[in-house]
């Protein structure tokens, strides 16, 4: 609790005791008023003061003013205990509200606690603690185990593993060695690292992410704008209704004090605070919670579009597939898989061709280099070599044909590498761009979330696209597209769309126009890529497609809480207004409809922080 809050708590305590005393003391007549004014002023003097001051400043109809009119009105018609109690109850509500808001604000802030406070700058070989703002590009900083990396840079000495959980939500550590790039906001877990700074603090990843999340409030959702507009009309309307209620019925039927009392209750209910605070707080909580999982949502507006997604369009390479070539199948012929792989990898061990790299990555056992001789690279064909005295061929069908060997055709798509040794066919290896491990699961989960259509767009060949789409269960595909065609396709899909919104998921590198054209553009693998952060509405820090359904789920969860809060606050207020008009609502119930509802709505809003993983 802050000093201000403690002070208010003490005043509430003292006021409550004084009120109890005033009710219990057998005082009658004129002395009753000062007796009740004592606790009234103890508890509510600041409300009175603020109301007076704000009127001078031209700010009428704020909650202080409304509370003052209501309670002073109650005093005027002789409802002393009620007036004091209402003021007391109001202050208790204010205190609760301020504590609850402070608490949720802090918990959101701690979620985003990636801002580094200090950096160890190396000066003449000695580390000096400085503020990260003071470190310049090209400086060398020292990072001890357990410390946050303060600035983006490249490792020049030391090796360690980094926890990127605060940035990506990914808990597996990332190993770094000299030459690797490290990003601010990651935590160094083991060794001491020396890093040459590559970006000034203001442009570092940690600061950029923080800015993005903090500025997310600027792009407001429809429901947020609705609430602000509503609040602007709601208060004056209810105040006018209160005036009418105070004047019209008594003119017809008499009973002034009874109707004024009911009108005062209207005034208390007329405060829009519960709505005004809880809706943005919910969005903020949702955005904060999502950022914890490495999902950066650039505004509450995109929460709404995400929640209504009916079509998800995926880019293929780098988004659903890894974008690097890998051995995906080995079809041996009369020998073992490992033998085929080992032989192919060994023959290719001097090559720097991408195919050779993927073969070496898959083939664990290499035959020692000195036993591989006469290596001959045949351009556009493959490699011929002599391994342990046996002539070996590794390459495409044409290479085999040149040597009079027949290869078996393969039903799989991708690059087929045939292997032959000593004039005999040994089998073939299929190399292609492998599908990411969670891709199928991501598509399935999107469908379970009610996404009606999934689409694949790619510049790749039809056969390769078909295989990926088939394996993942994607509904439609458009292959062999030029970069410009993608925008046309997305526009056509947008035209066909009757309900809901369209999301495009791409890796952000050259998809900027499409990301911008879609209702919501989701860029993947945003770590360190400025282009992606700039172009997209939602940035996924790691490149796991499973984050897409997760983002949709978070958006829905957040929006559900927003709707609950709006319905609850408006419902309770409407109910109390109706009850009050018929004289069935006591004034404390009206205070509950104001501050009580605020507190409950705030507590509900904090649920948006807890993210469904």
């Amino acid at each position: 609790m802050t000093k201000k809050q403690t002070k208010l708590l003490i005043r509430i305590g003292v006021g409550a005791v004084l009120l109890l005393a005033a009710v219990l003391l057998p005082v009658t007549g004129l002395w009753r008023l000062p007796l009740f004014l004592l606790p009234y002023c103890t508890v509510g003097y600041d409300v009175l003061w603020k109301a007076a001051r704000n009127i001078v400043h031209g700010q009428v109809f704020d909650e202080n003013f409304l509370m003052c009119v209501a309670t002073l009105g109650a005093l005027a018609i002789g409802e002393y205990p009620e007036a004091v109690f209402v003021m007391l109850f109001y202050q208790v509500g204010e205190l609760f509200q301020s504590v609850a808001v402070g608490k949720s604000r802090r918990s959101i802030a701690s979620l985003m606690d990636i801002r580094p406070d200090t950096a160890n700058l190396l000066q003449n070989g000695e580390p000096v603690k400085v503020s990260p703002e003071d470190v310049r590009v090209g400086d060398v900083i020292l990072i001890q185990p357990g410390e946050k990396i303060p600035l983006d840079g490249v490792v020049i000495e030391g090796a360690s593993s980094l926890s990127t959980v605060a940035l990506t939500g990914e808990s597996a550590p990332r190993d770094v060695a000299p030459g690797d790039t490290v990003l601010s906001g990651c935590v160094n877990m083991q060794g001491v690292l020396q890093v040459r700074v590559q970006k000034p603090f203001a442009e570092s990843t940690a600061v950029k992410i923080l800015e993005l999340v903090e500025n997310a409030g600027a792009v407001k959702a429809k429901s947020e704008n609705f609430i602000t507009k509503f609040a602007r009309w709601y208060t004056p309307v209810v105040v006018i209704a209160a005036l009418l209620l105070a004047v019209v019925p008594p003119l017809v039927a008499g009973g002034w004090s009874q109707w004024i009392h009911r009108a005062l209750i209207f005034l208390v209910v007329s405060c829009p605070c519960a709505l005004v605070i809880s809706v943005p707080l919910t969005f903020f909580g949702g955005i904060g919670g999502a950022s914890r999982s490495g999902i950066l949502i650039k505004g509450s507006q995109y929460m709404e579009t995400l929640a209504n997604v009916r079509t998800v369009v995926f880019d293929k390479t780098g988004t659903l597939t890894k974008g690097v070539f890998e051995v995906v199948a080995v079809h041996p012929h009369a020998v073992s898989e490992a033998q085929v792989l080992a032989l192919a990898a060994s023959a290719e061990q001097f090559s720097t061709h991408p195919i050779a790299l993927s073969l070496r990555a898959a083939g664990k056992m290499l035959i020692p280099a000195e036993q591989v001789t006469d290596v001959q690279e045949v351009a556009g064909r493959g490699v011929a070599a002599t391994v342990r005295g046996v002539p070996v061929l590794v390459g495409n069908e044409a290479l085999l044909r040149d040597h009079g060997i027949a290869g078996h055709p393969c039903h799989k798509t991708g690059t087929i590498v045939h292997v032959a040794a000593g004039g005999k066919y040994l089998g073939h290896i299929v190399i292609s761009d492998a599908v990411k491990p969670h891709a199928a699961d991501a598509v399935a989960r999107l469908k379970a979330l009610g996404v009606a259509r999934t689409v694949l767009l790619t510049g790749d060949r039809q056969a390769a696209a078909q295989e990926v789409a088939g394996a993942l269960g994607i509904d439609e595909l458009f292959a062999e597209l030029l970069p410009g065609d993608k925008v046309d396709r997305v526009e056509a899909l947008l035209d066909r769309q009757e309900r809901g919104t369209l999301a495009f998921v791409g890796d952000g590198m050259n998809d900027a126009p499409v990301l911008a054209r879609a209702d919501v553009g989701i860029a993947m693998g945003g770590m360190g890529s400025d282009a992606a952060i700039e172009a997209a509405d939602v940035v996924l820090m790691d490149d796991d497609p499973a984050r897409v359904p997760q983002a949709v789920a978070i958006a829905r969860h957040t929006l559900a809480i927003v709707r609950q809060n709006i319905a609850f606050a408006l419902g309770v207020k409407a109910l109390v207004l109706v009850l009050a008009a018929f004289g069935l609502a006591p004034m404390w119930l009206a205070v509950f409809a104001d501050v009580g509802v605020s507190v409950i709505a705030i507590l509900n809003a904090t649920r948006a922080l807890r993210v469904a993983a």
Partner: protein
Amino acid sequence: MRKTFELIDLDCANCAAKMENGIKQLEGVTNASVNFLTQKMTVEADDARFSDVMKQVVKLCRRIEPDCEIVL
């Protein structure tokens, strides 16, 4: 020029909304946002008039929420 300022003791969400609307209507201000949750204010205005604009902003905020202090 765009600048962000910290706000101390910004206690009510409705006042923040009022401040934001008010600042946006000031002359020379191209955009503004008052974030109740991060307790920060961002003002975007012409470079040449920025300090003048900020004086107006401070005056306006004092009128709407006198308890709230802008860290300049």
